[in-house]
């Protein structure tokens, strides 16, 4: 059993990652079937900037700067004082703001179960299916060698 803070952060990290992979329209589509989001105040953004993506030399060595990625971020505050943050790749301001409001609302234990069920889990299922489709197509292009013996 991990300590509660680590566990809360892990849950938060998960939904932030799922919301980052969903477009603003996809999130808004899911929100239609969810309890209304609380009112919020913008603290910062939504604003678009850059994050320098880094690789590692040789794949596993010291880091180097590969190139930048556009990122949109937003931070909001709910009336109860909860703060939500979002950083999402791309330039979708609506996605960033909805993700920030959801991040704040999901930290509220009273709202969390309904929002997870209506928004986060369906998006996760959709994203997993999309990834599985790619994996299945890749698997179909895997070469099945006819060999007499294996070599190393």
């Amino acid at each position, binding site marked *: 059993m991990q300590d509660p803070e680590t566990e809360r952060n892990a849950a938060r990290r998960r939904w932030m990652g799922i919301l980052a992979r969903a477009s603003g329209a996809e999130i808004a589509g899911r929100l239609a079937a969810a309890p209304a989001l609380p009112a919020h105040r*913008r*603290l*910062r953004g939504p*604003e678009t900037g850059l994050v320098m993506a880094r690789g590692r030399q040789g794949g596993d060595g010291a880091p180097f700067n590969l190139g930048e990625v556009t990122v949109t971020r937003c931070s909001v505050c709910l009336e109860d004082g909860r*703060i939500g943050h979002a950083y999402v790749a791309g330039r979708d301001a609506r996605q960033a703001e909805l993700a920030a409001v959801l991040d704040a609302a999901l930290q509220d234990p009273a709202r969390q179960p309904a929002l997870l069920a209506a928004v986060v889990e369906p998006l996760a299922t959709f994203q997993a299916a999309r990834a599985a489709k790619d994996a299945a197509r890749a698997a179909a292009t895997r070469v099945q060698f006819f060999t007499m013996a294996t070599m190393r």
Partner: protein
Amino acid sequence: MNAPLTPGFAEPVLDAQRCFRAVLEAMARPGRVQALPALPEAPAPLAPAAAAVLLTLADADTPVWLDAGEAAAAWLRFHAGCPIAASAAEATFALAGGVPPALRDLSQGTEEEPHRSATLLVQVAALAEGGGWRLTGPGIEREHRLLAAGLPAGFEAEWAANHARFPRGVDVILCAGDRLAALPRTTRLEAG
């Protein structure tokens, strides 16, 4: 984890441009007091003008040192994205609400790259034109008068030494409420 945060500029790009213009005017006309047209909701004890200047000028490449406490530092880091320097000597921008650090202790730039020096923001009790110091130098036709209330005794002597280090040396922005005036290192200052 969640420090109470307030918003920065209402219109980050436009407000920063307006403030930049005001700082430019202040630097071009040393001793003339500029009122800032756009102010953020800065946490106390940050003066609104000082907060606006830092939001305008500071970013991830400019370490900032300030003596305004943890809430102000967190607010600034959040909105400007600047690192917080451990000491004034390491800072590109230093902000003093209390007794300012000695000018000679701040980054002076080099003879080759004098622009790498620090800019010191000092929150003063009041700023007024027409009395106080007599300022002369580039950007001033004859002389400008400026009264800055609340600077430590000995500032004039420190400033003379700073001026003498040209092209190295520190530029100072004096802030009071929503107003500011600048002392670029080229300005000569005599007690009035």
